């Protein structure tokens, strides 16, 4: 008698569950989201690709389509227009867009707590401190964000940029003049530098680096961006996306080599040693609490004062008069205070 009851209960339970499944809205199936990167996939994008290949996003009910990018600015615009749901783009670029009137995009989770920007220079050109850069030749490309922020770098480190000559070329090969010695220095990022220094050394040129964070610039780097409309209408999706992404970031911080292996599943053309070096450089400079944070959601917290400072530095570098309320550029609703 007992076994029949058990069987009937199981059948009833299964039937109810099936009925519920059939009646449930489509939201039970994974939500499809698009996620645009700041650049073509490189080592520091490993957390995102690992999030997909390890099923972290899937676990949170998300089907994430990662779209390789071609600059932070286009990525910001894509979110603003609604063409993509989320973007990974530099906060200073978002600030610039906001200062120019863009209102619909917010940071929903910080990722690069510190900026990865730096200045690369040739040691044999008599440069040992930032002030030595005055009057030298710079390799740059038009529209370079870090190139523009160099203005603030110069002011903070007490030298003028007025005497500096520029060699402009197209991204992403704008550093070539520096490699062959035609230029003395160039704005760059720590992930680029880590590999370039080795390659330049092979060519007989010793490159030094002034990292922005070591020379008085503490601003935010790249973050997860979303449209205010998405935040208003699909808050749950944003919450899950932020959680899954930050979980992935922490995992990558703790297991960088495995993260690069995951990255190389979809991007096998990336060289493992270079990608790993890129990731490690970014983890060290821009995500310092990545491995140690007690809760991955703490990694995404935005401090109002630091956001204000980031905006101010952009204003100064671009010579802009208008202002924007820092609180308009982010929300901490999906993250945790460290």
């Amino acid at each position, binding site marked *: 008698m007992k076994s029949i009851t058990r069987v009937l209960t199981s059948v009833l339970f299964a039937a109810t569950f099936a009925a519920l499944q059939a009646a449930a809205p489509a939201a039970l199936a994974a939500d499809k989201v*698009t996620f*645009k990167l700041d*650049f*073509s*996939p*490189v080592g520091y994008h490993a957390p995102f690709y690992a999030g997909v290949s390890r099923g972290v996003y899937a676990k949170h009910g998300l089907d994430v389509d990662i*779209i*390789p*990018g*071609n600059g932070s600015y*286009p990525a910001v*615009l*894509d979110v603003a*227009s609604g*063409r*993509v749901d989320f973007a990974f783009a530099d906060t200073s670029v978002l600030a610039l867009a906001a200062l120019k009137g863009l209102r619909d995009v917010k940071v929903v989770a910080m990722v690069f707590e510190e900026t990865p920007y730096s200045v690369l220079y040739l040691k044999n050109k008599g440069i040992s401190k930032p002030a030595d850069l005055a009057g030298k030749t710079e390799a740059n490309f038009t529209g370079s964000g870090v190139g523009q922020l160099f203005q603030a770098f110069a002011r903070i480190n007490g030298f003028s940029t007025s005497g500096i000559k520029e060699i402009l070329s197209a991204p*992403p*090969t704008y550093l*070539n003049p520096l*490699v*062959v010695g035609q230029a003395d220095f160039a704005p760059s990022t720590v992930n*680029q530098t880590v*590999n*370039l220094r080795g*390659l*330049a050394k*092979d*060519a*007989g040129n010793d490159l030094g680096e002034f990292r922005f964070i070591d020379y008085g610039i503490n601003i935010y780097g790249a973050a997860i961006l979303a449209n205010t409309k998405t935040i208003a209408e699909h808050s749950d999706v944003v919450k899950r996306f932020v959680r899954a992404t930050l979980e992935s970031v922490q995992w990558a911080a703790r297991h960088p080599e495995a993260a690069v292996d995951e990255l*190389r599943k979809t*991007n*096998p*053309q*990336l*060289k493992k040693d*270079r*990608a790993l070096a*890129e990731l490690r450089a970014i983890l060290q400079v821009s995500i310092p609490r990545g491995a140690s944070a007690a809760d991955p959601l703490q990694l995404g917290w935005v401090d109002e004062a630091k956001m204000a400072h980031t905006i101010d530095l952009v204003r100064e570098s671009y010579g802009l008069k208008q202002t924007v309320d820092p609180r308009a550029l982010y929300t901490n609703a999906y993250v945790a205070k460290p």
Partner: protein
Amino acid sequence: MIPRVVVHYAPATILAVVVLVAWEALVRLFHVPEIILPAPSQIAAALVDPSVDWPHHIWVTGVEVVIGFAFAVVFGIAIALVIVMSSFLGRVLLPWVLLAQIAPKIAFAPILFLAFGYNQLPTILITFLVAFFPMVVNTATGLSSLDPRMKDLLRSYQASRWDVLRKAQFPTALPYVFTGLKISSTLAVIGANVAEFVSARAGLGFLIINAQVTFNAPLAFAAAGYLILLGVLFYALVALLERVTMPWAIPHRAA
């Protein structure tokens, strides 16, 4: 007895070998930085690197080129027909055709991706825009190049405008169309490449950009090498098609 094929292609091959050897030697001799100019040996290694899914990337770009080119040919010839048959419509359409050609695709590509999404549709559209102008111009020129006395001859047999078009203008236009096809096919490769530079998930253009941002010059050059190969293959196919389609033009063929 040396086979004729060998004799025919020997000079070009020898020159290519000489260039490659000189390149390799110069790069090593002058310690040219790898990221500026890699050695042929490094590029060759990248060409066959198993960790790069070459077939996939070549296929992705190849599909974009073929479809974009196909549309360029169909629309290009169609527009040329309209321009030649109706001077009114021709005046209306020609500025747009010119605009499509002259407008810098690099500037407009992001807008197209914004409009159509991050997939291959805008890429194919850009490929089409880059490739279709030569088809229009060459076909229109060809259709208009008919000797007016031939038109008289046909008219003397009470030929309609359609008869003249079908029997005389089309065949007269054929050599011009093939010239257009040759130019367009190579432009289609360039167009797909330009589009991929702006946005792509895969493809030879994607590889070039990705290689550049990771300072992997051998990979960038290898991807470019496959692109060149793709372009050459297309050109050769068109030339072959020309030879098969126009047996009467053999003494007049130049390239």
